[in-house]
């Protein structure tokens, strides 16, 4: 049965997220955390409320007050979700940070955590029993205390919270791109989250028998909003697994969807290719994906090739073509700005490649025209949301012209927490300047890529500056003479990090293998993603701007002119 009728003004009717949780039917299944065939945990809404209540009471005992920030760093799972909900229940403001992986450099992690903690002026940092002790040394100096939960707090009774949260009160903080220390905390109110969920649910024609599947991390907007807040507010079940378990064995996603009869899931673009290429054909024969009515490609530019590969690979698994949808979303708008409609394949167009590159205009042509480029629409705006394409002067441009996408709506954020400098740059007159390039035709939004130099690896945003700082630290690299680039890898369906760096002297090139190895090790330990390739160049190779800094665009151009084989492999 549809939760929504055709009246877009219908809302779920709650003032706050915690009110929605309080109203959840106790017996209904909420979340299942799957870690293997013999290791999964399921809670009903009633059980989840008790767990969240226990966390809430524990926080009160710790003296956490309404409005204070609580950082939650726990492994993906139900306790993490309960801690997050419990924090909101007492009117405090939770923020989930990524759990450290085994590759992390302890010193860097400590610095990053201290940076976020200081910026949020966090009152408490909640960690689980397995969290490495040596990563916590930094926290107390910033005024926050660390609370470790080796075991879940005792689940007593439903905690009857008496703080009167207002829809305009801060609900939680989502972190956006960047290394931990430089992350931008997007502050979101209960009202903004609920309005976003209403519009999204309406566009998805959410049903009370929908079942969500997710491997997405809860510190990311797709995981937090679409796969935790949406089912919590609409009282739907969600089947989860950890991102690591999924990426190691992608077949687990169709296995779980088959077993759970899931109906909705969100994935970044690269996941579609990984599922098509890294699941054995003989395994696919066992899957039944006919229950899926919305598999939504979100968080990276939507690529036709990735859709085609997935559809072809899973045609015999019952997956319906019209169930593969697209969306354009960002933490700064809580989540979705656009969503393609359920039951229809997202619109595709072909545009004149030369006119797009040279004239920045999307002129629609026949697919058979030489050099025609195919774009997949991310859908039209959900209710109360708008996208405008803007030129370099910040003014709107004509339909079909390429420019920076600016978005506004009734869930757009009010600022980065404690960062008025960053807020002033990104948010002007109620519009958020996304840094994404795209165009709009017939109301359909097409996202081309990033205006800024942001690199997106497997849905994770990486600032090139963060990579370059790591490269500069190497003694054989000329300080300030390195450029990190994102380059689309067709094989993976996401971007690779390429590094171009000048050595201090020509003689250093003899040690290129060793230098590259050291830089790769430093990049993975600090950023958690691997650099695909490092190109060491002699002194004075990197192109500088008039300000004397490396010019990423000019260096990129010079690099590809000198290395056409890289373009040939994955242009």
């Amino acid at each position, binding site marked *: 049965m549809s939760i929504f009728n055709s009246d877009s003004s219908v809302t779920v009717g709650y003032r706050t997220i915690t009110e929605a949780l309080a109203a959840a039917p106790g017996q209904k299944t909420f979340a299942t955390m799957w870690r293997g065939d013999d290791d999964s945990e399921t809670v009903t809404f009633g059980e989840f409320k008790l767990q969240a209540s226990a966390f809430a009471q524990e926080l009160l005992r710790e003296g956490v007050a309404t409005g204070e920030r609580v950082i939650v760093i726990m492994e993906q799972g139900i306790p993490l979700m309960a801690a997050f909900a419990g924090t909101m229940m007492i009117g405090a403001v939770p923020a989930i940070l990524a759990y450290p992986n*085994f*590759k992390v450099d302890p010193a860097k992690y400590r610095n990053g955590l201290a940076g976020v903690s200081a910026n949020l002026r966090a009152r408490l940092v909640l960690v689980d029993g397995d969290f490495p002790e040596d990563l916590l040394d930094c926290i107390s100096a910033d005024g926050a205390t660390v609370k470790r939960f080796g075991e879940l707090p005792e689940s007593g009774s439903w905690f009857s919270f008496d703080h009167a949260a207002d829809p305009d009160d801060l609900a939680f903080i989502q972190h956006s791109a960047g290394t931990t220390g430089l992350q931008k905390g997007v502050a979101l109110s209960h009202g903004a989250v609920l309005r976003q969920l209403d519009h999204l649910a309406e566009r998805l024609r959410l049903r009370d028998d929908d079942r969500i599947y997710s491997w997405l991390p809860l510190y990311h907007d797709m995981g937090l909003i679409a796969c935790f807040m949406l089912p919590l507010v609409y009282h739907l079940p969600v089947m989860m697994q950890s991102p690591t378990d999924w*990426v190691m*064995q992608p077949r687990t996603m169709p*296995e779980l969807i088959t077993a759970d009869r899931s109906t909705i899931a969100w994935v970044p673009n690269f996941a579609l290719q*990984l599922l098509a290429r890294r699941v054995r054909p003989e395994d696919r024969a066992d899957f039944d994906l006919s229950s899926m009515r919305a598999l939504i490609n979100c968080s990276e530019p939507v690529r036709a090739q990735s859709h085609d590969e997935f559809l072809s690979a899973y045609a015999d698994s019952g997956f319906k073509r019209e169930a593969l949808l697209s969306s354009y979303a960002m933490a700064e708008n809580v989540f979705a700005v656009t969503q393609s409609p359920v039951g229809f394949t997202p619109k595709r167009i072909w545009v004149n490649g030369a006119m797009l590159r040279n004239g920045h205009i999307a002129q629609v042509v026949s697919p058979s025209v030489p050099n025609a480029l195919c774009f997949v629409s991310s859908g039209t705006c959900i209710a109360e949301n708008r996208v405008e394409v803007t030129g370099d002067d910040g003014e709107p441009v004509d339909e079909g012209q390429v420019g920076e996408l600016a978005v506004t709506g009734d869930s757009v954020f009010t600022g980065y927490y404690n960062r008025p400098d960053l807020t002033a740059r990104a948010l002007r007159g109620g519009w958020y300047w996304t840094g994404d390039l795209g165009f709009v035709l017939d109301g359909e939004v097409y996202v081309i890529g990033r205006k800024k130099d942001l690199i997106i690896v497997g849905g994770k945003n990486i600032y090139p500056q963060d990579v370059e700082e790591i490269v500069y630290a190497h003694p054989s690299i000329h300080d300030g003479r390195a450029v990190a680039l994102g380059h689309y890898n067709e094989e993976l369906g996401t971007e690779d990090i390429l590094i171009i760096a000048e050595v201090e002297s020509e003689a250093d090139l003899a040690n290129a293998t060793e230098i590259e190895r050291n830089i790769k090790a430093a990049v993975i*330990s600090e950023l958690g993603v691997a650099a695909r390739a490092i190109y060491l160049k002699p002194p004075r190779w990197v192109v500088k701007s008039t300000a004397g800094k490396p010019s990423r665009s000019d260096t990129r151009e010079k690099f590809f002119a000198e290395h056409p084989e890289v373009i040939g492999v994955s242009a």
Partner: protein
Amino acid sequence: MSHAQEMIEHISKNVIRKADVQIDENTPLVSSGLIDSFALVDILMQLEDVTSLRIPAGKVQPKDMDTVALMLETAARVGKPRK
């Protein structure tokens, strides 16, 4: 050819693809940045093929795959006969 040699050859030839980078059974691969997590999918599938075992989902973490020696230990510990 031993399982370890087969894995080393596969990783060198198909994943790292650089003639001047030599690895052995104990070379750290993930923690050193030599390979990324996307490559682990391929390596895990190869490990299943080489050992003729099925690695059950949820039983292997990146740290269990950091060296060829660890991979083979992991396969022996958690692997099950293939159908």
